[in-house]
């Protein structure tokens, strides 16, 4: 269970979201909806501890975020940002880099799985020997999602995962995430998208960020 209790985040004293609570169980497919600027990205970053929370707590497997060894936690709860980033070397080197981290020390790059994922995404093997600056924005995004899934996380936080993709590519990424979900009943994801039909298609549940309902914190003194 990934649980958020009373989360709040302020920027310059203005609440972006507050009193935000939800929990996400194994197997769930959750949409995170809200208008631009409602803090969807900030929430995802906060859930993996890349940003600070101003209030509330995040729990995973009944353990608070500050009780977790953060690299171990992030191995299980994985945030995938909208802008994919790479090393200056080849795509394969960018993928292999993750296996050098201590938190992933018991993992090994599974070539068969890599092969299968490349197949689902309909990307040729030669892809891995290219440098990232030879990839299109859409290709980068697909590779970024694939390399994350190879590490076998339990929770995926996908921030606009198909924003740079054409229609054919979108279907393949959706198929890849479906295949990953089928691998283990503990797996679950949160997905943001501007494409509401995609959210209807991919998810079963919604967490809504509604700026109109955000209350001013009681302790704040407005100047």
């Amino acid at each position, binding site marked *: 269970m990934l649980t958020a209790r009373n989360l709040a985040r302020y920027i310059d004293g203005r609440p972006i979201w507050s009193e935000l609570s939800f929990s996400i169980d194994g197997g769930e497919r959750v949409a995170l909806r809200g208008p631009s600027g409602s803090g969807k990205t900030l929430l995802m970053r906060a859930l*993996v*501890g*890349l*940003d*600070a929370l101003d209030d509330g707590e995040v729990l995973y497997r009944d353990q608070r975020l*500050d009780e977790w060894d*953060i*690299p*171990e936690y*992030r*191995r299980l709860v*994985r*945030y*995938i*940002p909208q*802008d*994919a*980033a*790479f*090393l200056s070397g080849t795509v394969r080197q960018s993928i292999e*880099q*993750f296996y*050098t*981290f*201590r*938190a*992933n020390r018991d993992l090994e790059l599974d070539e068969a799985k890599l092969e299968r994922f490349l197949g689902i995404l309909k990307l040729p093997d030669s892809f891995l020997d290219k440098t990232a600056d030879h990839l299109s924005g859409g290709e980068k995004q697909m590779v*970024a999602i694939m390399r*994350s899934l190879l*590490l076998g996380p339990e929770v995926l936080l996908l921030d606009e995962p198909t924003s740079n993709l054409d229609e054919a590519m979108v279907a393949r990424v959706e198929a890849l995430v479906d295949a990953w979900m089928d691998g283990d009943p503990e797996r679950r994801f949160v997905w943001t998208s501007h494409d509401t039909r995609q959210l209807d298609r991919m998810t079963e549940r919604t967490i809504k960020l509604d700026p109109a309902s955000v209350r001013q914190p009681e302790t704040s003194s407005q100047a």
Partner: protein
Amino acid sequence: MENTTYIVIGNWQLALAALLLIVNIGLSAVLRLGLGRDLIVGAVRMTVQLALVGLVLEWIFQTRQPLLILLMAAVMAGLAGVAAVQRTKRRFPGVYWNSLVTISASAFLVTGAAVTGILQVDPWYDPQYLIPLLGMVLGNALTGISLGLDRMMEGCVRNRNWIETMLSHGASRWEAAHEEIRQALRTGMIPTVNAMMIMGIVSLPGMMTGQILAGAAPLDAVRYQIVIMFMIAACTALATLGVVLLAYRMLFSADHRLMNSRIREKK
């Protein structure tokens, strides 16, 4: 100073030397190159600063008070620590303290080891040795610190996406920062390493030249130059490492988060 064989420079000789520059300033004015102002300001600043330092040094060399000498050393280290930060493009809270602590610690450690252990100066605070050695070590450590700090902050800002991608995939803060730290250290050490590479071939180092002008045998001057280069390399490496590691602790929090919000552009 029993074997001083150098020519003492009088005031009219100084004026003659200034004439060399005045000719250039005149040329700049005639050709409207706009170089005159900078040259005049630079020349005046240099002359005034050196004259003042000369007076202070003259006084300290005469009194030979260890406390005064140490005070002078502390002021030099303080100025170097501040100057190192002032050359950087970005800042974070506490950056001045980081710079002051590392430059003082590394310069006093290296210079202290040199005057007591290597040169065995007696007394150890003899300003004839302590002050010039410290000055040279500080000047180079300053460059290493400012280059290292600049590269570290630049790297964290420019490579933020990749650093956070690594963190998101299970990297500890040390694993995520490692490449930036490596690059910052390398950048900070480049001038020192380059100087050692070309020393004596392309450039005759200033200190050695000065000793030769003052009548020292070239081979003796060379020995001093070798010792000072080892000191400079050791101190610059130590200072750059120290300041980069302190920056790392400030820019990567203990809960493995990149704290780029702490970096401010210099206004």
